[in-house]
């Protein structure tokens, strides 16, 4: 699988931008589709045919207006005939089923992602749906179906667009970018212990904030300092161990903003006077140094040497004469 993936992925790095925009659009349409007809997607063959016929209607709507395509009016008929390819080119039923399940799980995951966008909870909320999606994609790309049918060639790489692959790789990129792997062990379908522990500590801090929020903020600063610092330390430990995912980063960011900006608990600039005193002392030192070396150090003198010159031609006088 990995070889095939790598091989396929390469050309797409070049126009990544287009791909991403495309994927976004696709994801959006899926999202709206899923909203309206979650149940109907179950059986995809009629669905796909429906969209195919819709396309054809569109073609009909466009074609008559252009005179160039006039002869092709007849081809509408032949297009209908072509709806069934010869046996060996047709996608097997097994694969069609897989594709249907893929679509369903895809829309569920995207749905989940969107709803967990702000505040970011994409890892903790959607790891299950992502696992499902991954599984079905693995089935498509790896496994042999009944009668040694492989859907990899027929679904993933039989056309230029390679839509299924494209769709999946985009979601995979999102997953990688959010570093969810660090918080979630997909094998066990659960959050890691570190993550759970962090959430717990975070909740402690937040509840402490809530408790003292009403009154004076300085009280909050002193009372919640211990839990907040514990949280900070845990966070930096996790940062060192590379066990941070976007969920944790985001929640920590929000907590820090709360702490420093909303409650104003950062350190105050309290030692201006000593710092200025020490600095001016330091700045004063070179002045003393230069003054003392100017006054006490003897000035370096250079002994002049008179070069041997031809006596008949006193060159110095020459210069003087010619320039004065």
């Amino acid at each position: 699988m990995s070889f095939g993936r790598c091989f396929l992925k390469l050309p797409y790095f070049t126009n990544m931008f287009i791909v991403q925009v495309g994927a976004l659009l696709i994801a959006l349409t899926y999202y709206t589709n899923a909203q309206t007809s979650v149940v109907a997607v179950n059986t995809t063959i009629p669905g796909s045919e429906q969209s195919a016929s819709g396309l054809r209607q569109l073609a009909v709507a466009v074609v008559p207006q252009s005179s160039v395509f006039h002869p092709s009016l007849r081809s509408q008929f032949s297009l209908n005939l072509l709806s069934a390819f010869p046996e060996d080119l047709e996608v097997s039923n097994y694969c069609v089923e897989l594709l249907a399940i893929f679509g369903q799980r895809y829309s569920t995951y995207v749905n989940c992602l969107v709803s967990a966008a702000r505040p970011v909870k994409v890892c903790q909320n959607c790891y299950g749906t992502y696992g499902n999606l991954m599984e079905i994609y693995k089935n498509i790309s790896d496994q042999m179906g009944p009668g040694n049918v492989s859907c990899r060639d027929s679904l993933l790489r039989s056309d230029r667009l390679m839509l299924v692959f494209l769709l999946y790789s985009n979601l995979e990129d999102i997953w990688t970018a959010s570093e969810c792997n660090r918080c979630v062990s997909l094998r066990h379908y659960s959050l890691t212990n570190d993550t759970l522990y962090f959430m717990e500590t975070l909740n402690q801090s937040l509840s402490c904030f809530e408790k003292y929020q009403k009154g004076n903020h300085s009280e909050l600063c002193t009372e919640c300092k211990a839990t907040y610092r514990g949280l900070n330390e845990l966070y930096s430990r996790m940062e060192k161990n590379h066990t941070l995912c976007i969920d944790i980063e985001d929640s920590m960011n929000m907590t820090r903003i709360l702490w420093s900006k909303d409650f104003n608990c950062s350190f105050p600039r309290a030692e201006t006077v000593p710092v200025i005193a020490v600095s001016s002392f330091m700045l004063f030192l070179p002045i003393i140094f230069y003054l003392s070396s100017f006054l006490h150090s003897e000035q370096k003198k250079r002994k002049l040497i008179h070069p041997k010159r031809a006596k008949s031609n006193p060159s110095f006088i020459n210069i003087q004469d010619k320039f004065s």
Partner: protein
Amino acid sequence: MHPSLLQDSVRGCPKEIPHNEKLLSLKYESLDYDNSENQLFLEEERRMSFLGFKCLEISRWVICGLIGFLTGLIACCIDIAVENLAGVKYYVVKQNIEKFTEVGGLSISLILWAVLNSAFVMLGAVIVAFFEPGAAGSGIPQIKCYLNGVKIPRVVRLKTLVVKVCGVICSVAGGLAVGKEGPMIHSGAVVAAGVSQGRSTSLKKDFKIFEYFRRDTEKRDFVSAGAAAGVSAAFGAPVGGVLFSLEEGASFWNQMLTWRIFFASMISTFTLNFFLSIYNNKPGDLSSPGLINFGRFESDVSVCLLLSSPKPCGLLGALFNILNYWLTIFRIRYVHRPCLQVMEAMLVAAVTATVSFAMIYFSNDCQPLGPDQSEDYPLQLFCADGEYNSMATAFFNTPERSVRSLFHNPPGRLFYNPLTLSLFTLTYFFLACWTYGLTVSAGVFIPSLLIGAHRTLARLVSIMFVCRSLSQVWAVPGKYAFNGSCRGIVRMTLSLTVIMVEATGNVTYGLPIMLVLLTAKIVGDYFVEGLYDIHIKLQSVPFLHLEAPATSHWLTAREVMGAPVTCFNRIEKVGTIVDVLSNTSTNHNLGKICGLILRSQLIVLLKHKVRELARSRLTQRKLQLKDFRDAYPRFPPIQSIHVSQDERECMMDLTEFMNPTPYTVPQETSLPRVFKLFRALGLRHLVVVDSENRVVGLVTRKDLARYHLGKHGLEEMQLAQT
């Protein structure tokens, strides 16, 4: 009062004056690039087979490869050492600051920082001031002089190299506002001079190889290759390195030499790249061709900025140079004792730390931490959690890293605040100006980069961000053109343009960079000379510029030359020679009309003859060119040779040792003509003869270098003992 009048009035008694720029020091001699074609030389050439010449050519290539390799290795060592030392220092200070931000007592962190800085710098300054003063400064002026043909004492010794490398590590790790490019070029040159000789006099080790290359002409070629390798390791700019050497020594050039130099440059940048990528655990990545790394720039060319940057940069550079000029004069006059120099360097380091700390302390500019941890030592201080003080990125860092973060942090994050930028620039400007010229080994390129870059940036930041990196690239050479301005406008801008283009990896900006360089150079030249030129002058070096002063055609060789010349007979008494040599310590000696012989040659002759005589006349071995080479480059003083009364009466035949065909000019030749001949051929002596071919005088480098164009027309510098 005009100096020449002064001199006339007090002729006879030695006079002492304070040091100034219009002096020529006696301690500098000329290198001899002219081959002495005496009989020994001809004999050797005759003995040498065709194969021998081929071997020489091959060994030249081998040496160049070695030079490149070693230079790259040294650059690599410097980089790694600086990174680790500075890393330890900043880690300690950062821990301390974090601790005291909470409990109070930040002034202690300030003192800790200052003390750490001073300690590093003290180490660097002590080794330079007490062991090898020649390693002070950036080294580029010295190499320029060497390639120009001035023999600067001790400039290409092994000891100098060691002190230079350790010194630059200390001074960069000590947080001074310096770079490590200039020292790199110097190191390359020393490596070249050492490797090409196949021995080390300091270590008393002679490998008995490359003996053919033991003379000024050959050594000089290799030194220029070494300087090129240094440039190429420093900036990752091999072609720029070749052009740098070309500019400095273009008068003695041939195509094969260019090829060899290019080879050395390429090897050097590749070696650095290779070892650094191994060090960074990315073997085969090869992403750091130079010590400074601008990375790649990708943005549109926007012409709006083109015209705005050079002029102010030129003015700024002029101010820098003038300030530094006065400071250097003061230093030479009053801060000349080694312990004072060490103290001064330590003070500068402490003040640098103090100023940086104060800037960071009072800065209100906070930026959120990046996702990729691009800040090496983020300081939070009074910022909100998850943010860091953006002034600290500039100051709490080695200068090189500040440059990198300046170029590479995405727009809108670092250095967003124009106030932060302008403050940083202003402080850094004065710090860099104060630092350059200290008795530590350090370069000026990176500081000028920071100043130039920041200044323009500060002005442009409100205009647009896309142009940001561009404007820096443009501004930078503008500033540097100034500091590094060498001789002709076109020539130095050529190598700088290429260096910048190569360092930024972007050919597209070639034209803008060149235009900016030209403008800045013209603006700057209007006010003051380049920084390196100023320092060369202040060192009283007899430096021969590209051309003789413009209004000097009326001066003839008769007025320029030194006279009378010491003459010997073809066959001379040993006693006479010894007496003459003992009396004059400066002048060189001349065979009457028929040839020229050097003091060093005479000394070697005396030494060997004396030894031979002591043994037996019968087994007398013939003196070969090899004996002269073995003594090169440290010829013993005449005092070390003892000649007995008996030997004084012997006669010595100088015929086969002297150069039978020295260059001569008639005494009516004009100064520019003499100058051209002298410079183009790399001469050390030029004999002046009268119409009957009798020797009347001798023109040396100091006789030519003393004329310069001043405010009152042509002025003459004075010779002085330094």
